[in-house]
């Protein structure tokens, strides 16, 4: 690495300058929980832009009808934040199941998105929450993408040359919202998802409104299972409907066999997790009826 090979700008303008004239293969370094591993494995990048000190990436607030999460916000910070828990419970749940406390204190929201792992837990929650990702560059200004527009394949994103993820905007959960995150691994901590399911929906007048179900580690990208959502939309949640949605989800995912699990097992996990999530939704509805709220 040359002198230009490592830069640590103090603000967003500096970061965008460092990225604007950067050689191909330049990477942004935030928490380093993925990038440092590549470095340790001997991979070389012509330039690393360390954004740890860029304060513009540290926002975490409710603003303009959304929860605004800066790309540099760590998973540990998400977990400590009461607004995250209240307004984006699904994101909080995903953060709670994320790796270990040691990794959570460094890993960032922006890094989880840009690393574009099919098993990325936060990305999965953000997809189900219909979050918008704001990208900035010196030349192109600001543009906003959905999670499914940003993440294109394993390690592949729509991020253009010189572009940086600045903020993620998560719509605030309505009082009728139900969020549920399920993830499987042989150990509760430090486990890469064998399969994961993130569910966000609302129940209004006894019917399911705007269900969004995202599945992780069962396709090249975190995947919305639209046919399962269509089963649910506008219908009353019943055990029979839950079963129908679970089977629809298992049918549409495209898992592979690998060292962590077989495709068949993953497909069964998806059905089980969708079933479990929706049953929890049904139970929460019964509780709210019983308490008259």
């Amino acid at each position, binding site marked *: *690495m*040359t*002198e230009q*090979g*490592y830069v*640590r700008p103090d603000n967003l303008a500096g970061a965008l300058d460092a990225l604007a004239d950067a050689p191909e293969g330049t990477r942004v*370094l935030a*928490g*380093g*929980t993925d990038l*440092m*591993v590549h*470095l*340790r*494995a001997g991979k070389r990048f012509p330039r*690393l832009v*360390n954004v*740890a000190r860029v304060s513009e990436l540290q926002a975490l607030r409710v603003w303009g009808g959304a929860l605004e999460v800066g790309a540099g916000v760590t998973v540990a910070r998400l977990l400590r934040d009461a607004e995250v828990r209240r307004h984006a419970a699904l994101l909080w749940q995903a953060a709670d199941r994320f*790796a*270990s*406390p*040691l*990794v959570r*204190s*460094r890993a960032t929201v922006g890094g989880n998105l840009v690393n574009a792992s099919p098993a990325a837990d936060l990305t999965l929650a953000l997809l189900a929450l219909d979050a918008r990702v704001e990208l900035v560059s010196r030349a192109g200004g600001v543009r906003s993408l959905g999670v499914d527009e940003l993440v294109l394949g394993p390690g592949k994103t729509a991020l253009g040359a010189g572009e940086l993820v600045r903020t993620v905007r998560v719509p605030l959960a309505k009082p009728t919202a139900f969020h549920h995150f399920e993830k499987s691994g042989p150990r*509760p*901590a*430090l486990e890469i998802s064998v399969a994961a399911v993130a569910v966000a929906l609302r129940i209004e007048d006894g019917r399911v409104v705007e269900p969004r179900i995202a599945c992780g580690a069962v396709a090249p990208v975190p995947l919305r299972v639209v046919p399962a959502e269509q089963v649910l939309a506008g219908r009353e949640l019943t055990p029979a409907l839950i079963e129908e949605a679970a089977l629809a989800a298992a049918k549409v995912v495209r898992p592979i066999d690998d060292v962590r699990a077989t495709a068949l097992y993953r497909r069964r996990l998806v059905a089980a997790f969708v079933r479990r999530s929706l049953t929890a939704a049904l139970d929460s509805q019964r509780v709210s009826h019983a308490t008259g709220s």
Partner: protein
Amino acid sequence: MPAGRPPKTVLTLKVNGDSVELAVEPRTTLLEALRYTLRLTGSKQGCDKGDCGACTVLIDGTPTLACLTLAVECQGRAVTTIEGLARGPHVHPVQDAFDLCGALQCGFCQPGMMLSAAALLEANARPTRLQIREALSGNLCRCTGYKQIFDAVEVASGQREVAERDPRPTTGGES
């Protein structure tokens, strides 16, 4: 220095209470700086990719994986390694409890375990068993000694009695 060798950056760290100045290449990890420049080999180089926790140190009191942290990021920050956990001649209560409970076999995970445990007790003086397990979940022990380790943290926090106290040498001094 051969041509093309990355220039070194001089930085100041506060390691175990002492201010130290060292020159590192941009790509040097904190773990490498501690072990190979400062010769503090208590922080272990296990997986070297953030999975095992053997390299855990405290940065400004927060347990941190030194293998995933660039040394240059730590300019001006307080780093505590296992060598600095004892306070003067007295071992830290966590160290004492690990000793009393036999919470080690090979010892490789111990520095990281004890630093994670010390940080937990700093934040939460009487953690539940579940909170202990959660706080240490990023530190792997391959001798399967978790029970004794969790017991030790309970002993250190005054929530568990040690049944028998074996005669043992005093742990003070330079040993």
